[in-house]
């Protein structure tokens, strides 16, 4: 086995990679009939994934890009076609076997995501060489923040098997899946390997709601914010960020002000380091990806940096290292119930 650094990027598909429209009945009905060409990716996401792979290859890092989707394999052809159209090279997509669940009479599991995703993540982790770092990408539509944080805490050993079973029971996960999760959790080596969890705010959920999950989780409004944090982490280079900027301009019609405001927002929220932001803005200006005038220090910038120190040394740093999952479950259950009601009304 080589001693090279290994990094795995795990992506959700709907509402994270794809702008899937399942908030209306019309959108839901259309999904099975969509072709690869019909599917729309979030602006900049494909460029980001390509950039992550090429940055890793340049630095001789072993990289894996995996997708875990809650969609059934029946829509797989269109999704794989879309990834190919976007020139996204990946190491596999896991689909949810909805038909198998129907055959076994597990109708409740059709909508259930926590047990399904957690077991898939753990199963995949079991096959990873030890020490492989992970970055996880999801959205705020259902329960990705909880699933990914729970997964990170299970593989780091922060949560033991008894606690895991208690949390999964509280979440109402199918006992069969809970037992599978328990077995897999026992088998994975315990390592602090999940570096960051990125949550795409497709619903524009207020970022403060994610504070209970701690600093590891980054709520991000667009893929420039995500790219900037990954640049700061050293897994994406400046060319990669510039590609994301270019893609957001062409695919999403972003102008310089929107892009700069996005960067300022993610820095103010304490997820991008001061030094990282300064280097990034300077380099993007040299690349002509962002305007020069915005790159230099302005009278606003001083205030902005002061704010960052005040807010994030004060607020984000006191966020707990490990989420108190049992206290988060009622809010999550309430949110899911509201979502179901909204979907029924739609």
């Amino acid at each position: 086995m080589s001693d090279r650094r290994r990094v795995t990027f795990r992506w959700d598909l709907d509402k994270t990679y794809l702008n899937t429209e399942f908030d209306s009945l019309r959108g839901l009905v259309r999904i099975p009939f969509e072709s690869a060409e019909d599917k729309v990716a979030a602006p900049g996401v494909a460029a980001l994934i390509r950039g992550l792979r090429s940055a890793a290859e340049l630095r001789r890092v072993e990289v894996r890009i995996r997708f875990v989707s809650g969609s059934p394999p029946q829509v797989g052809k269109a999704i794989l076609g879309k990834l190919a159209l976007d020139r996204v090279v990946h190491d596999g997509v896991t689909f949810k076997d909805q038909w198998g669940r129907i055959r076994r009479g597990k109708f409740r599991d059709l909508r259930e995501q926590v047990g399904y995703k957690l077991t898939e993540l753990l199963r995949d982790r079991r096959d990873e060489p030890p020490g492989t770092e992970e970055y996880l990408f999801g959205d705020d539509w259902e329960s990705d923040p909880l699933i990914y944080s729970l997964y990170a805490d299970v593989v780091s050993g922060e949560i033991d098997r008894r606690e895991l079973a208690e949390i999964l029971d509280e979440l109402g996960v199918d006992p069969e899946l809970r037992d599978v999760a328990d077995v897999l959790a026992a088998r994975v080596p315990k390592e602090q390997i999940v570096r960051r969890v990125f949550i795409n705010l497709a619903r524009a959920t207020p970022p403060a709601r994610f504070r209970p999950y701690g600093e590891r989780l980054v709520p991000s409004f667009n893929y420039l914010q995500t790219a900037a944090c990954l640049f700061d982490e050293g897994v994406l280079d400046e060319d990669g960020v510039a590609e994301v900027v270019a893609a957001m301009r062409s695919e999403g019609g972003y102008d310089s002000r929107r892009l700069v405001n996005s960067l300022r927002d993610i820095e103010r929220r304490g997820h991008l380091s001061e030094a990282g932001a300064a280097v990034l803005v300077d380099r993007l200006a040299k690349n002509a990806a962002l305007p020069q005038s915005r790159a230099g220090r302005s009278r606003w910038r001083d205030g902005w940096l002061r704010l960052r120190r005040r807010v994030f040394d004060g607020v984000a740093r006191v966020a707990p290292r490990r989420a108190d999952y049992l206290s988060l479950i009622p809010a999550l259950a309430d949110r899911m119930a509201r979502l179901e009601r909204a979907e029924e009304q739609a």
Partner: protein
Amino acid sequence: MPLVAVDAMGCSGDVVPAVRGVAAVSRATDIQMLLVGDADSIQRALENTEYNPERIDIVDAPETPLGMSDPPDRALARHSRGSLATAVALVADGTAHSVVSAGNAPALWRLCLRHLQLRRGVAQAGVAAVYPRRVDDRLRDPLALILDVGATVHCDAPALVQFAELGEAYVRCVSKVERPRVALLNMATRADAGGEILIEAYRRLERSPGVEFVGNIEGHELVGGAADVVVCEGFAGNVVLKMLHGLTSLALDLTGAGAQRGWRWRAGMAMMGGNIGPQTPMIEYESYAGAPILGFESVPIYCEPAAPAQALGNAVKLAAKIVRDM
């Protein structure tokens, strides 16, 4: 793209209404906004709200804001880096296109006079406000414009003519009324009523080529819909406007009290509810956008000190519309 500076601190220093108003606008429109005030408080409020960060930036101005009762001149000298002064300065230096504030009104007025350029040919700026009126034609704007409501106390005839021209241009560009009808607020409809200044103003307005002058209008005709723009001096305009606010809230209070007294009233209200509901925003002054200050190169919008998030959001939309249309 319009860029609107919003004084987030107002008079109280509570940034939540402005942040919520701006956040709502950021999710629904392409307007760019600068929230000016204590950046720490703004950031905390923002993170607890649904917002679109691509449309919002923050300018730090952490000084305690001027209260409603602070004398503006002396206080402004001490508050040169307060949120109100910073927001106006952002417009003056060309960074922002317009400013919205629910802060100290006299201070805003003085800052505008000190830092903003008057439009060419304008000698007297005025504060305008809208009020609901009766309209027969559904296509007509249900709101009329009245000015001045606070920039002046008393003024001369040329200033009244200027208000008429400013109001006419505003209603034509923003409310899209092709030939706005302009009236002069007076105590009688006769041309020789109201004293020397109003008689002179009447005479000048009659001869003014760009203004569709419909004559004098009395207080009881204001809500009748005869005029799109009503011109008056600041003292009268302010009294009229506040009296309209007072009467509206009295009517709402009486309705509420009646409903508490008897079941017949409640039943009647319940039956009429479906028709009354859609009209409610027309009489709720809190949801109005605010008062545009007309005559400067940019159009600042002043909101009531206790303006709720919705009113501040509407003020931002109005400011952006003016930037686009005027």
